């Protein structure tokens, strides 16, 4: 799974916000607010990775139980796919 090209993360007032640029901004009108782990996963999925790799990366970066990390990554990936943010 990989994120579509055309999104950029901007840190504004300590918050991570994803906005579209270029061609994508013609079809996507809005902004996506991410928390810290959301921003981490967003950057991670800028490259092609599986859910399992996302879980391993999240566990490596944060002090989180693997079960919780898997649930979070799956939810995150499902939201990305449901909103058409993936390639």
């Amino acid at each position: 799974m990989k994120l579509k090209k055309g999104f950029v993360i901007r840190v504004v007032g300590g918050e991570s916000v994803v906005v579209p640029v270029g061609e994508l901004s013609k079809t996507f009108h809005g902004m996506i607010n991410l928390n810290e782990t959301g921003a981490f996963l967003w950057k991670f999925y800028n490259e092609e990775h599986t859910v399992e790799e996302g879980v391993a990366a999240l566990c490596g970066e944060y002090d989180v139980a693997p079960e919780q990390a898997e649930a979070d990554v799956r939810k995150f990936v499902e939201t990305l796919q449901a909103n058409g943010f993936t390639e």
Partner: protein
Amino acid sequence: MMESNQKLKIEDVLEQNGMYVGPTVGVSMLPMLKNRRDTVVIKPKTKRLKRLDVALYKRGDAYVLHRVLYPIDGGYIIRGDNCYADENVPEEAILGVLVEFFRKGKHVLCTDKKYIKYAERRLKTYKFRRFFVRLKGKIRGICRKIFRTFFPKKSTN
């Protein structure tokens, strides 16, 4: 972890989030903001805007981001950095004000001294730039006339 507000209008996002972050569209604020490349951060207007502020307002259904030249009673005289016509915008049409932006990915605060110098310079050189734009238009017109004199359009009859 993630919240998206794709279906909301900018004014709704400003009210809910207290901030709108989005791409720039159009050429009216060139060279500062390039179409669909740069990102602007808008905050709701909390006080009367002042000279050099960049206001977000609505013109019909379109959102416009242009610079305040000076405040007037009940509104502002506003113009885009790359425009040559002033606009009288009523106070109630103003949705927010630009507080920071990302130009070519570089973060710029609207309180930054370098940025303020740029904005001042843009206003100061307006007459000079307008003169050259008009001159360019006239030269283009003359060239077109000369071209038509030597290469007239062929009649289809």
